[in-house]
């Protein structure tokens, strides 16, 4: 990475990074998110867990100004993402679940274009693109078209696009699926370093171990509603679990019994 000015990522005195207040989103008669109220503070590595269809991606899309809520309010650094979309998008980065990459650009071009779209000048964008390719382990493949990348390489490129402007808040929606363990280790370290320097990360994932290891606080979402919120220790206490209960135990307890009863018993016969 290039040299950052001293204290560029320094946290602001524990302000709110994201605040949802009674956030609701309906699709016809289907309620995807139901009255979500939640605050994520600056400098937090916040985990957002939930089973498939819980409303995680919908929430992230609303927070990033990509989907209007049916009711309720959102504030990102105190700003309404629909009233001041450019200000919010300029301060945040997003790795969406469905990667939004132009496949007929090379990795280097995609990163440079992302930097330019975030308002960096051409030279800075190019320098950072080179740095990011090295950080993500893609320096050998930077000149290849993205269409020829594996899923993991695409994820890495999307992550690079999301951080090239050094956002204050990073939304990661299932960012690590398909990324090899070696690259994952490096990425995790840098993300943790970013958090230490004041960046907020809103991390949605199914991988319990990752969330448990990385996140300072977690929300468990089920059918659009928060079923548990807090640090792991707090959630254990709230749900009446033992001190050695894992996040997976907490998750199962919060959401309900695991799937897989007798419906497909023929599989094991």
């Amino acid at each position, binding site marked *: 990475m290039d040299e950052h000015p001293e204290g*560029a990522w320094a946290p602001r005195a524990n302000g709110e990074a994201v605040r949802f207040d009674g956030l609701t989103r309906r*699709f*016809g008669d*289907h309620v*995807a998110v139901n009255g979500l109220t939640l605050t994520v503070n600056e400098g937090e590595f916040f985990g957002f867990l939930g089973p498939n*269809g819980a409303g995680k*991606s*919908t929430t992230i*899309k*609303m927070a*990033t*100004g*990509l*989907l*209007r809520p049916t009711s309720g309010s959102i504030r990102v650094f105190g700003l309404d993402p*629909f009233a001041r*979309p*450019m*200000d919010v*998008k*300029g*301060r*945040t980065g*997003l790795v*969406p679940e*469905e990667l*939004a*990459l*132009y*496949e*007929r*650009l090379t990795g280097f*071009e995609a990163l440079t*274009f*992302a930097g*330019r*779209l*975030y*308002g*960096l000048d051409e030279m*800075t964008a190019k320098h950072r693109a080179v740095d990011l390719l090295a950080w993500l382990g893609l320096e050998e493949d930077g000149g290849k*078209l993205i*269409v*020829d990348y594996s899923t993991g390489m695409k994820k890495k490129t999307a992550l690079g696009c999301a951080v090239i*402007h*050094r*956002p*204050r808040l990073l939304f990661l929606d299932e960012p690590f699926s398909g990324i090899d363990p070696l690259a994952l280790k490096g990425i995790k370290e840098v993300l943790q370093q970013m958090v230490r320097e004041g960046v907020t990360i809103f991390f949605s994932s199914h991988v319990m171990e990752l969330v448990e290891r990385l996140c300072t606080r977690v929300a468990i979402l089920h059918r659009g509603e928060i079923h548990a919120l807090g640090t792991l220790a707090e959630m254990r206490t709230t749900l009446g679990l033992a001190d050695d209960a894992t996040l997976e135990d907490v998750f199962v307890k919060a959401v309900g019994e695991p799937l897989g009863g007798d419906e497909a018993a023929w599989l094991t016969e």
Partner: protein
Amino acid sequence: MADGVTAARGRLGVLLRLHFLLTWRPRKQGGAADWAGGLLLVLLSGFAGLMAFGVSLGITMSAAGQPAAQDLSLWAGAGVLLLFYILMGSLAETVAGGIDLSFLFHYPVTQRDMVLSELIARIAGPASLPALGFFAGCAAGGLWAGRPALALAALPALLIWLVQANLLMMALDYALFHIRRSRRFGEALALAGSALLIGLIILQNIMVHYSTGPSSPRTALWVPDWLSAAGRLLVPLAPLLPGASAASWIAGGWALIPRAGMAGALIVGLFAADRLLLLRLAQSGGVEPGRRPKDRAVDRTMAREWKWAGRFLPWPFFVKDLRYMARDPLLRTSLLSIVAFPFFVVIMASEPSGLFAGAWFQHSGFLLFLLLALSRFATNNLAIERSGLGQVLGSPVPRWAVLAGKNMALMALFLCVLVVPIGFFVWKGMPPAEAGAAVLTAIATGAVYLGLANLMAVLMPVPVAPRGRRLMPQVSGGMMFLLGLLNIVVLAATEVALFPLLLGRLAFSDALSPAPGLLLALAGVLYGLVLYLLLLAWASRLMERRESAIYEALVRGG
């Protein structure tokens, strides 16, 4: 603090570069086809430009002594040019630049910059050549006719036309993308489009009425008097329509300032509409609602159906593709536009010339129209629901069954839509035997067309996301144009393959009584089905051989 400049200024250049790269960069594999398509697009656009030059030059020179008639012809010509532009865009999916704008929605880029960049990219594309030719012809003709003011006005008129036409096309694109989520909106749009088309035809006829005089029997046949009278009230508004307003401005005279004002207002209005539509898109998320209990119940019903139909191998693919296509708003919308078709037939059939009055012509006409409506899906049938293709190719199912299932689904939709014009003809007095023969001919034509379309899909698989699903396909402009042309080639090949059948119908349609005519059509169906089975066997064998290439091209992307 993030480094990104929060006020989103100065992104236009970046977006334009992105447009250019993504529109014209060839794919790694099949780059030659991309280049060939691009070259063809430029050549054909250039040719169309030359023709448009000739037409407008002719108009301005021939009506040199009658400025009023000249001006009327010019704005009508510009309106027709717009229709041609839209039709060309529809056939070739896209004729100018364009990128999937939804990928930019999470960046701090304003809708104004997105609309402006797409507008400039489209104007700079080869599809602008016909308009350039048309207005250059106006200028040359104006100079020849001793009307230098007209020649001077040609350049701003060209700009007005290009801006209006492209903003209109973009508004249609954005609106089509909305129908992904709004069935009612899509269907309303289709009906409004049909109404607009009918309106334009009526308008055209009113113009003929004006130019040939009210006593013309031709006009009286085409348009009922009451409609003509009502339409006459709208004539003053016609020069204000997109496209026509540019040429009406050329007419100049005392009305120059208000007309220029109206043209400008139209541009501002269209630009605002584009921004608004894009903003709505940017804030609509693209999130699919979760599965509902009702959907699960449908799946269980299907599982029961499969038990009895399971012996027929294409059945599961037929059901899958039928369900997929029935839910595809773009397909449904395209087919709905056929509602407008009977009006064309009435207009053609009321032409005094006997050529257009024959039943064989009407049948061929609506068949061609139906196939054109279906061609964007059928000729690329492997790209329909391409995300599911990996699963299909990974399963131990004969490839003919996969293709036949898709064809059956397309044929079912084709026949459903066929009911509209056939019903119309029966209502207008067509004998039932004649109607039956028409349906049988349609089945034969559809079968042969689908057989040929299978071959094209296997030989040239392209991961096209049709309009409405994404803002723009992820395939180069050249490739899209080539696909559009190949669709026409498949249609022409269908006509060639069915030539004996068409010849028979042409020869005997007036001479035979209805029953032998029906028998002839039945023989035609048998001929068509045999041809289809042969083509299906060929395509499925080719598919087995080219499976990895198809998989790579469709599932992995362009």
